């Protein structure tokens, strides 16, 4: 390790702290705003420190706010979003671990064809095919259903690729040892493969949970009724910068509620998340 001058270390810390200020400030300020009265917020500048309305605002948003977001409670919105995020994460993991298992460990006709069929989907995000996909949803009657929110987002290849890569690092000897030990395909999957994939699954779970939670365009399209909205969409509907009716203190509370769960997931599962992210995308 090459030594470095205290000054440079100091500069490093200073830059980092400045960076954190920039990065964290919008979130912090949202929190501050969520603890002030509407009047305070409407008269800028907003104080830098939290106000005394924390309890009032949060309880109003959570329990008294019926009717504010098209008659849907914040609880319902959070539930919708959680279902969507969990559905996307769990569904995608299940589906892709099975596909990767099939692709890596079994030889069957057209195997590589299937692989490429799936692989190509990796390239096209939902955003570029919204219209036709939307039509399919309408035809299948999946508008305003959880299935409609979740299933089309499951069909991408990222996770399959990640598992495939991981499975290919599993030594052939291990597979053979299991065969000699009398483990059939399913036993091998549950006794060996699944436990070995734990870290990968955890990492993917975080990444996909965030992915599901932060979706915007898709829920915007496939939900017409307000009580199927995700919290992100509902938040957008609450805000109107042009008209003064926006109840900013409640908007800010809702924003906090929309931000905090995924942040908690990321921060608490940081170790897996970082490893999974950096490894999977390489």
């Amino acid at each position, binding site marked *: 390790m090459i030594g*470095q001058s205290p000054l440079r270390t100091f500069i490093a810390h200073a830059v*980092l702290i400045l960076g954190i200020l920039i990065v*964290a400030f919008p979130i912090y300020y949202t929190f501050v705003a969520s603890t002030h009265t509407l009047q305070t917020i409407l008269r800028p500048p907003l104080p830098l420190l939290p106000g005394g309305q924390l309890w009032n605002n949060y309880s109003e948003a959570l329990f008294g706010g019926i009717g504010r977001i098209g008659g849907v409670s914040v609880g319902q919105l959070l539930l919708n979003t959680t279902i969507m995020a969990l559905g996307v994460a769990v569904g995608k993991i299940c589906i892709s671990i099975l596909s990767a298992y099939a692709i890596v460990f079994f030889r069957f006709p057209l195997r590589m064809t299937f692989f490429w069929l799936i692989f190509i989907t990796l390239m096209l995000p939902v955003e*570029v095919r*919204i219209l036709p*996909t939307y039509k399919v949803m309408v035809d299948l009657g999946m508008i305003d259903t959880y299935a409609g929110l979740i299933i089309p987002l*499951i069909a991408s290849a990222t996770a399959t690729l990640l598992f495939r890569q991981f499975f290919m690092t599993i030594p052939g000897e291990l597979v053979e040892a299991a065969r000699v030990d009398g483990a059939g395909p399913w036993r091998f999957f549950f006794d060996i493969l699944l436990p070995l994939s734990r870290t990968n699954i955890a990492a993917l779970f975080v990444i996909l949970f965030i992915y599901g939670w932060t979706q915007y365009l898709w829920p915007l399209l496939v939900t017409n009724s307000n009580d199927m909205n995700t919290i992100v969409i509902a938040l957008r509907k609450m805000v109107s910068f*042009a008209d003064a009716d926006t109840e900013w203190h409640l908007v*800010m509370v809702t924003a906090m509620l929309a931000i905090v769960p995924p942040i908690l997931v990321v921060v608490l599962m940081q170790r897996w998340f*970082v490893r999974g992210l950096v490894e999977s995308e390489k």
Partner: protein
Amino acid sequence: MAPQLAITLVFFYWPAGQALYQSMLRQDPFGLRTRFVWFANFRKVLADPAYLNSIQVTVVFSLATAIVAMVVALLLAVMAEKAVRGKGLYRTLLIWPYAVAPAIAGMLWLFLFNPSIGSLAYLLRSLGIAWDPLLNGTHAMILLVSAAAWKQISYNFLFFVAGLQAVPKTLIEAAAMDGAGETKRFWTIVFPLLAPTTFFLLVVNTVYALFDTFGIVHAVTGGGPGKATETLVYKVYNDGFVNLILGDSAAQSVILMAIVIALTAIQFRYVERKVHYG
């Protein structure tokens, strides 16, 4: 396997085929008749000044976002490598924005910078800057880029940190013995070795700026003022779902697909090269 294939077919290949087919149809103004027009829609779209404007907007927006997000992240990553103590804490605090939905990121920034109640807008005005992102297209673009880049800093930061850690310490020590100062070491040794990471992030950030930022545009400016911030994806949505010009929208979708495929191809070339050089 089978379930993934089924989902892929129904929600991916079928729609993609539809898009291709749609992009060659044209409806009369009353939606009564549909004609097959081959590539007329593409010609029309590509000749449309609004579309050309949208391309320009997208290029400016994507490049600015990618560059800002990467420069800031690289700076922070380099500093985090130097700050031996507190690295973990800094990382924990810096990854927050990753978890924030782009649309919400946009709204937070708009909350800070909107002309009527934004505290930072207030600050700018009191500094004598006539700040109004709701009326001034450039200001609107700056706001969008800030929000979009802000959200992406975490991601880039994590990759740059990983990239920096992968630079062999012995190389840096060798350079130090060769008399290269710290700054020089960075630009002549570390930065070139980071090139693969940088390139990878450039592609990822561009894709992000092209597609994932729909929420930001939709929530913050709605493409306005005028069409100053109407990106390609936003225009697909707007033409298809708001203005209901299906043929044009489908043609735009197909063009977008082509762009993504090109970007992905570039990325895979890179991945392949990486495999070769270990």
